[in-house]
C-alpha cells in the first residue's frame, strides 16, 4: 500500500495551519488538489532560468521552453495512452475542452432535430456548452437519469440513445456521488448507434489509470489542477482524424500556417487548437505532475483511495442524522457528499473550518443533480493520495461538534 506519510512530505502546504495551532485538514481535492514540490519546482525553474515564449524564438531559451512544453505534451499522451501527442490539445481546463468540442465539432456536425445525450449527474461544464449548442442549432439535449443510489439508470438507454443521438457526453466519475460509471459499456452502446462519445474525466484522471485507446472514446477532457497540477492548464484528447476534420475554435497566433489579409490557413495538430501564447509554466508543470503521479503509480493511488472511501463511509455512518449520497464505497471514488439532518451545508462547512477542516458546501456545479435529490446543497468531503484516516477521524469529530452547537 501507498506510504501516505512519505507522500505527505511531498506536499509543502500540508504543514500549514488553518488557524494558529489548528492544522489544516484539506478535504476539498475534488474542487482543486494540492501540488507536490516537484511540480512547483518545475514551474519555478522554467520561470527563473529559461522563461521565454514557445514555438517562436530562434534563441536558446525559447528552444528550451518549447522543448519542455512539448515534452510535457508527450508525457500527458503516454499517461492517458493516446496514440500520438498531436491528439493532446492543451486547454485551460476541462470546461474549455467541452466548449472547444461543442463549438468546433458541434457547429459542423449538429443540425436541427439532432439529439445530444448527457446524464443527470453531469457537472455544469458538461451541460451548459451543449445547451448553448442546442439553442444555436435547434437540437435537443436529453439526459440519462440516475437512481436513488446515484447510479445511472440504464433501463431506458435504448430509448435515449438512438440514431438521432449525435454525441453522448458523460462523466467517468460523478463529482458529487463519486459514482464510477461503466465507461466502456456506455461507449460501446453509443458506437452501436453511430453516436460520438466525449468523456468528462476531470474526476477520473487524477484518481485511477485511464487509457483512451482502451475506452475508445472520441473525446476526453480533464483539468490539471485536480490532479496535483497547476490551474490554467487542462487537456482535451481527441482522435486524430476527428481533430483534423474540425475547424479551429479560437483564432490568433500559433494556430495558423499562413495569414493574408483575405484568409488564413491552419497549423498542424495540436497547435491548430492552441491560439495565442499558451500557459507555458503550467504546461511544463503538468508534465512534472504526470511524472509524479506515474512515479507513485495510478493503480496504487486508486487502491489507496478505495481504502480511504470505505474507511470514511464507515466512520461517517456513526454520525447520527448524517446521510452520504451516492452508491456504496465499492462503486465510488473518494468523494462523500452528505447532509446532516436539516442543517445548511454552509453552517456545517463554516463550523468545520473553525476546526481547520476544509470541505466544500454548495451544489458543486451540479444543480440539476441536487434539484432531483430535492436539495439546494450538500457538504462534500473529498480525498486524495495525501489524505489520512486520521483526517477523516477529525472530520467525524468536527461533525459531532456541529451537532452539539446546533443542539441536535
Amino acid at each position, binding site marked *: 500500500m501507498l506510504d501516505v506519510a512519505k507522500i505527505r512530505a511531498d506536499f509543502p502546504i500540508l504543514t500549514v495551519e488553518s*488557524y494558529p495551532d489548528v492544522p489544516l485538514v484539506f478535504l476539498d481535492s475534488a474542487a482543486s488538489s494540492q501540488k507536490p514540490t516537484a511540480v512547483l519546482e518545475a514551474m519555478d525553474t522554467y520561470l527563473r532560468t529559461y522563461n521565454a515564449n514557445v514555438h517562436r524564438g530562434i534563441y536558446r531559451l525559447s528552444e528550451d521552453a518549447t522543448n519542455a512544453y512539448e515534452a510535457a505534451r508527450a508525457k500527458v499522451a503516454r499517461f492517458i495512452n493516446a496514440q500520438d501527442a498531436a491528439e493532446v490539445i492543451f486547454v485551460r481546463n476541462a470546461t474549455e475542452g467541452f466548449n472547444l468540442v461543442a463549438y468546433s465539432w458541434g457547429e459542423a456536425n449538429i443540425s436541427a432535430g439532432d439529439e445530444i445525450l448527457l446524464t443527470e449527474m453531469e457537472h455544469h461544464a458538461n451541460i451548459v456548452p451543449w445547451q448553448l449548442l442546442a439553442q444555436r442549432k435547434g437540437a435537443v439535449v436529453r439526459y440519462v437519469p440516475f437512481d436513488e443510489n446515484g447510479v445511472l439508470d440504464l433501463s431506458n438507454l435504448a430509448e435515449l440513445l438512438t440514431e438521432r443521438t449525435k454525441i453522448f457526453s458523460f462523466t467517468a466519475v460523478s463529482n458529487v456521488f463519486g459514482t464510477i460509471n461503466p465507461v466502456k459499456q456506455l461507449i460501446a452502446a453509443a458506437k452501436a448507434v453511430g453516436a460520438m462519445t466525449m468523456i468528462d474525466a476531470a474526476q477520473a484522471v487524477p484518481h485511477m489509470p485511464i487509457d483512451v485507446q482502451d475506452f475508445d472514446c472520441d473525446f476526453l477532457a480533464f483539468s490539471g489542477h485536480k490532479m496535483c497540477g497547476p490551474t490554467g492548464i487542462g487537456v482535451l484528447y481527441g482522435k486524430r482524424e476527428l481533430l483534423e476534420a474540425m475547424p479551429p475554435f479560437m483564432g490568433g497566433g500559433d494556430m495558423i500556417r499562413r495569414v493574408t489579409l483575405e484568409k488564413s490557413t491552419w497549423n498542424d495538430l495540436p497547435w491548430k487548437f492552441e491560439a495565442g501564447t499558451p500557459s507555458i509554466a503550467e504546461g511544463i508543470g503538468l508534465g512534472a505532475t504526470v511524472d509524479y503521479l506515474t512515479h507513485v503509480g495510478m493503480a496504487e493511488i486508486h487502491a489507496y483511495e478505495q481504502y480511504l472511501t470505505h474507511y470514511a463511509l464507515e466512520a461517517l455512518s456513526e454520525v447520527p442524522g448524517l446521510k452520504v449520497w451516492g452508491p456504496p464505497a465499492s462503486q465510488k471514488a473518494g468523494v462523500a457528499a452528505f447532509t446532516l439532518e436539516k442543517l*445548511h*451545508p*454552509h*453552517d456545517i462547512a*463554516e*463550523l468545520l473550518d*473553525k*476546526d481547520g477542516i476544509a470541505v466544500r*458546501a*454548495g*451544489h458543486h456545479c451540479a*444543480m440539476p443533480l441536487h*434539484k432531483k435529490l430535492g*436539495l*439546494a*446543497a450538500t457538504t462534500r468531503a473529498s480525498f486524495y493520495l495525501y489524505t489520512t484516516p486520521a483526517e477523516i477521524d477529525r472530520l467525524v469529530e468536527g461533525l459531532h*461538534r456541529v451537532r452539539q*452547537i*446546533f*443542539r441536535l
Partner: protein
Amino acid sequence: MDSSMYREQIIDLYENPLNYGELDPADFSYEEDNPLCGDVIRIDVRLDEQNRVAEVAWSGDGCAISQASASLLTEEIKGLTLDEVKAFPKETLLELIGVQLSMARVKCALLSLKVLKAGAYGLPDPEEIHPGHKE
C-alpha cells in the same frame, strides 16, 4: 475552538424565528433566492396610514446566518417609515447580528435586507427580469 459566529442568539433564532410567516394581503412582498447556496427569503410588509411598518413577516429557508438575520431585521424595522426602510443601512443589520462574518457569509446575512429593500422600492419579481433565474 472559536465558534463565536454561532453564538447562542443565532442558534436560538434559527430554532425559534421571530415574525415567521406570510401576510396576505400585504402592501409589499418580495422573494429572492441565492442560487449558490439555496437560501430563499420572502418578506411581506403592511404599512399604516403614516407609511410606517405596521406588520412584517418573513418566510424561507437557508443557513442559520440568513435565517437569524431575517428575524433580527424584521424585528428592527417595525414602526419605521417606508423611507427609513429604504435607507436602512447594512451596517446596522451586521451590528444586530453581532458576530464576525467571513466575506462569503456577509451575503447570507444581507439577503433579508436585499429582499426587504427590493420590496420597499417596488422592484419587479426577479423572475420577470431574468426568466429562469430562480432554480
